[in-house]
């Protein structure tokens, strides 16, 4: 059952696609947003976009944590890395994301101590091994990642590691979804809900979509049958049923989520206003360390606060993240901006819409 192959079974994918075609035939064009960058990546990897009928379109949303990290936040991380004695530890995806003056990768090339880690625990280990260094972990990610970082802070507290801290750039997904819908720039017929965010948050967290926006939401996993069965559920809802939240990822997601993880997240972090690339400032859309954990708050310890900074000239990542334009509508796409030489973050991350569309175009 664990075998991903069960969820990649080509005849089942073909049957589900056939069901989508039958349900969608003769309908006005339907447009669903996959909120999550992991889905954007899976859709590109399995070529699902081209297998769907012409009147069923999928648009990428703002659910790529690397992509929505604002320029000013990258600048703050680089400023931290420039401090003598500071080691910045980060997930690898953040290395090439551009700020206003280069990336963390550029900072490392200029001599800053920036290290790629797989887990915040690795950063904690570095802090234990180098007591003279100030190790700052860049807390980037949604509700999937924030509990993991909270757990690392609690471990630092329990084991008395005082040269470890977190620059919290964590963001929350429901406020971003609302911001995209409230902007009123895109007409959508349903949302593919993020699978691993929902494993923590619970599928009920998306109840506001049918309630406040009359939109169906299908929470999905990341295998081809997961994604296509979510599309089946969304088209079925458009075709007559009341909009609702459908959990199409029942093996990993429950209605209430992971209570232990949520409790740990809430113990360490409190909601805060945050700037998103593409969405601007969104109230209560991010997480900051609670005053009780101020000792592990790198922003306070080093007096560094992200400020609002302009996006790269000509880059239209913001509109891509809001689903307003498709990546290839950006004049830089595939010309001045490519995965080898990205201008904006949506081309940096393999979960970014621009990188995903670029790899699809390469394959065709």
């Amino acid at each position, binding site marked *: 059952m664990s075998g991903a192959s069960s969820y990649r079974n080509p005849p089942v994918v073909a049957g589900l696609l056939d069901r989508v075609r039958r349900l969608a035939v003769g309908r006005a064009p339907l447009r669903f947003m996959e909120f999550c960058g992991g889905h954007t990546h899976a859709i590109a990897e399995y070529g699902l976009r081209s297998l769907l009928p012409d009147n069923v379109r999928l648009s990428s949303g703002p659910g790529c944590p690397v992509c929505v990290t604002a320029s000013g936040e990258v600048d703050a991380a680089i400023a931290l890395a420039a401090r003598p004695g500071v080691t910045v530890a980060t997930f690898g995806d953040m290395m090439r994301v551009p700020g206003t003056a280069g990336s963390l990768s550029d900072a490392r090339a200029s001599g800053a101590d920036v290290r790629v880690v797989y887990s915040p625990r690795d950063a904690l280990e570095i802090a234990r091994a180098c007591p003279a260094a100030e190790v700052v972990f860049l807390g980037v990610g949604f509700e999937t*990642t924030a509990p993991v970082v909270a757990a690392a802070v609690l471990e630092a507290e329990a084991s008395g590691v005082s040269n470890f801290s977190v620059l919290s750039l964590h963001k929350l997904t429901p406020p971003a979804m609302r911001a995209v819908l409230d902007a009123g720039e895109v007409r959508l017929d349903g949302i593919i809900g993020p699978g691993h965010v929902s*494993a923590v948050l619970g599928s009920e967290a998306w109840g506001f979509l049918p309630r406040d926006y009359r939109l169906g939401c299908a929470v999905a996993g990341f295998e081809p049958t997961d994604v296509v069965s979510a599309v089946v559920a969304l088209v079925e809802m458009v075709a007559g049923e009341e909009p609702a939240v459908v959990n199409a990822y029942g093996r990993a997601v429950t209605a209430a989520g992971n209570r232990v993880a949520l409790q740990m997240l809430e113990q360490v972090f409190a909601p805060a206003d945050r700037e998103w690339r593409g969405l601007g400032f969104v109230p209560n859309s991010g997480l900051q360390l609670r005053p009780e954990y101020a000792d592990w708050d790198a922003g306070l310890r080093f007096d560094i606060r992200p400020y609002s900074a302009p996006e790269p000239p000509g880059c239209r990542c913001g509109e891509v993240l809001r689903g307003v334009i498709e990546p290839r509508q950006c004049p830089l796409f595939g010309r001045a901006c490519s995965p080898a030489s990205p201008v904006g973050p949506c081309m940096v991350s393999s979960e970014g819409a621009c990188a995903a569309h670029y790899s699809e175009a390469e394959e065709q």
Partner: protein
Amino acid sequence: MCLAVPTMLTEKREDHGTVELAGVSREVSLLLVPEAQVGDYLLVHAGYGIAVLDQGEAQRTLSLLNEIASASLDT
């Protein structure tokens, strides 16, 4: 970024354990999934188990998808 891969828990020692995927073993924290038991499949994200996969649900989903798919192709 929210990548989490299903892996089987092969050993459990208090709040951490060992998972195995394709013959490779890895240490994992079980702080967020204290209920995990040896033999369970976990979603592992950044070194921490974040969910225990429900094998019964997995089986039901596969059967349901098979049904939908074959019903559509047969009609």
